[in-house]
């Protein structure tokens, strides 16, 4: 299809594509616009006036800072856990053969395939059964279940593309296990891990369902937003936070996208 790219697409198709894209992205733009509206009780279109006062208001609200800080900490720790466990699991599944290997790789992927609500309920009942009070760590635990999957998927794909005899070659040349990991394994999977880690971070940052079941009274950013929608005052504050969240999650995802694309080229040229 790419060979006849010089031929322009029919006008109807172009309009349909434009409409599809607008439908996807216009609501996000609306959020940005409402961040500057002067009307604080409800969202009115068109905005009666424009102001930047909500940025200052948001800056001075301690609950926003608490939610943001909790979300960032949870995402960071969950991602760190996922990076270690996901990489180890991917290495085991792709490097060795053992009984139940296929079952394990399915079980690892399951948390992301299952509806979040199942994971949430399951964790909540497990916590209450074990008498574990809700805390920062219960949220982290919940998020780690799906963060591991993202890292695992990225790492396993990269491991499959790297030659197994490279590790043996490194050992053969005098490198012990740690040196081999540092000088051969890590450089070859680094971009995959970075991409997986960023996706994991972004997923954790906007997760609602599992968090609802594992957070107790704590508020991460998405949960704080849901609560905020019920309150009648200072509505645009939510929009300001939403803008920040979009930026915080979008930039790493774009970066990860470029990294993995780059990684493909490097791996391909090695063949």
């Amino acid at each position, binding site marked *: 299809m790419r060979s006849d790219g010089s031929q322009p697409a029919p006008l109807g198709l172009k309009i349909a594509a434009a409409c599809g894209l607008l439908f996807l992205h216009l609501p996000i733009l609306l959020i940005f616009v409402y961040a500057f509206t002067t009307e604080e009780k409800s969202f009115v279109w068109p905005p009666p006036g424009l102001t930047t006062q909500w940025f200052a208001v948001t800056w001075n609200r301690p609950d926003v800072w608490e939610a943001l800080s909790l979300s960032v900490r949870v995402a960071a720790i969950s991602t760190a856990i996922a990076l270690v466990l996901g990489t180890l699991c991917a290495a085991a599944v792709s490097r060795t053969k053992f009984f139940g290997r296929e079952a394990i790789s399915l079980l690892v992927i399951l948390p992301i395939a299952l509806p979040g609500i199942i994971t949430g309920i399951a964790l909540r009942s497990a916590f209450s059964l074990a008498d574990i009070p809700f805390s920062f760590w219960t949220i982290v635990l919940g998020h780690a279940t799906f963060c591991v999957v993202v890292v695992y998927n990225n790492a396993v794909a990269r491991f499959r593309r*790297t*030659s197994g*005899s*490279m590790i*043996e*070659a*490194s*050992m*053969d*040349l*005098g*490198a*012990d296990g740690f*040196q081999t990991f540092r*000088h*051969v394994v890590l*450089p*070859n999977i680094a971009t995959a891990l970075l991409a997986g880690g960023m996706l994991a971070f972004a997923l954790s940052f906007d997760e609602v369902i599992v968090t609802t079941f594992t957070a107790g009274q704590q508020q991460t950013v998405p949960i704080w937003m849901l609560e905020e929608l019920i309150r009648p005052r200072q509505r645009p504050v939510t929009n300001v936070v939403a803008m920040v969240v979009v930026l915080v999650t979008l930039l790493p995802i774009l970066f990860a996208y470029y990294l993995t694309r780059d990684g493909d080229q*490097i*791996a391909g*040229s*090695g*063949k």
Partner: protein
Amino acid sequence: MTSAVSFQKVSRHFGSVRAVDAVDLDIAPGEFFAMLGPSGSGKTTCLRLIAGFEQPTSGSISIFGERAEGVPPYRRNVNTVFQDYALFPHLNVLDNVAYGLMVKRVGKAERHKAAEEALSLVRLPGYGARRPGQLSGGQRQRVALARALVNQPKVLLLDEPLGALDLKLRENMQEELKSLQKALGITFVFVTHDQGEALSMADRVAVFNDGRIMQIGTPEDIYQRPSTRFVADFVGSSNVLPPDFVQRYSGQRRWGSLRPESIRVGRAASGEGVAARLVGTNYLGATTRLALDADGLRLHAIVPAGTKLPAEGEAVVLTFNRESLHLMDEAV
């Protein structure tokens, strides 16, 4: 004299599969040693046992007199050229070659100098800045060779070193490996399934089958005096003659082998010999291979190109010198 590599009753079993089964082996220092055999015959496992990627199930291995069991690959003064070369794609050629020195914490300037020298040795000077992905198959193999040699191993292991190269390149590399080995005086152990490669390069050849060594000897020994039917057939496709047939010509009831090039094919009624019928001809360039049927026994003869050939289906008489009929040790 201490052997470079010595196997005593070494076995390596994978579950019920005896990949290597009670192998005894002594490789002399400075020897160019070939392990020849079909795939799955245990030759590669033997190589991996020397490298340390496999541990023997039983038996003992020593490398220059030192026990090798339990010693990890990175503590052995042995280096390997891998079949797929296993170059590191994220490093350039120079850093690939210098890798072994880098992990031994040799300074940057010194290891790069040594790597440059190793690259000159394999006739790739000035290729250091390139990435492995930018090299041809033959060049990658030279880099793999330089990367192993830069560590000055006592034993160099080569796993099907020429398998992935095309014919012309393979012939060049054969000569080059041979002269490199002579110049460096390092013990080379290489694994191959190509009997021509083994015969042309090695000082001694071990023929493997089913995890056992069938015969060890010089290329001439292996080719002219195979000890078993398997060796006769695998190395150079010799004619394996059944005991009854051999008894008629040598008086002994033993399995015999007769090289195809030592059979002379004459017209019928031209005198004494084995009566046969020509059933097929294969033109091979310098020679022609004839398929013959001697009263149910399938034989092959190789005659120089240009010989006047009987027509297919014609009756012929086969003659050969008594001394070219080799009696094998294998029990009847």
